[in-house]
């Protein structure tokens, strides 16, 4: 069966520090991968998605970036965190192709920028 991992689960970082969040999927190959951000009590904001290694689509301009160095690994990064980067970050995967159905989500990372 497929599983999705995210780490760390919780992170507290000062403003101006770098960020690296990692997401890995097991039990599938060539998935679509997604990064979402969720502010407290709010909806999901799509940040990036990837349909293959090295292929990244950015949905919102900001100081975050994403990379996909391996088929089942998706990394969210920042060189210098802002206070507004605080939130709950969710990684998700979707089987490739139009005949797959729903996304599957990881447990999330709670990021607090101080």
């Amino acid at each position, binding site marked *: 069966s497929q599983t999705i991992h995210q780490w760390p689960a919780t992170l507290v970082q000062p403003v101006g520090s770098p960020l690296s969040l990692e997401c890995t999927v097991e039990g599938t190959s060539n998935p679509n991968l997604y990064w979402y951000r969720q502010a407290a009590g709010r909806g999901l904001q799509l940040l990036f998605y990837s349909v293959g290694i090295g292929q990244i689509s950015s949905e919102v301009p900001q100081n975050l970036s994403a990379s996909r160095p391996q088929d089942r690994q998706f990394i969210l990064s920042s060189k210098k965190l802002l206070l507004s980067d605080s939130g709950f970050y969710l990684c998700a995967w979707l089987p490739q192709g139009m005949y797959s159905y*729903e996304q599957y989500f990881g447990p999330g990372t709670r990021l607090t920028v101080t």
Partner: protein
Amino acid sequence: AQTVTQSQPEMSVQEAETVTLSCTYDTSESDYYLFWYKQPPSRQMILVIRQEAYKQQNATENRFSVNFQKAAKSFSLKISDSQLGDAAMYFCAYRSQASYDKVIFGPGTSLSVIP
């Protein structure tokens, strides 16, 4: 571009009663999927139910059912015999078959269950 609207930011229901959460979407496409996700306090996103647009029959999963009105672009979720564990944020989501790489989420409805 497609949009998903959930007009009820918050709702409450008495335990064992029935509640309906609303969702409308805007699209010019005919083939797509609709979903309801639940996000409990743990914040893990859990799929509740899925509807394929080509299916006229409304999807059901135990106490959860949908009312899918394709012409009206409406996709409501009915929770019967509400339980305390149903308290969560509920998100309606849309996925096009044409632009099948992206999923569009509504803003969510926070459901409280009153004992």
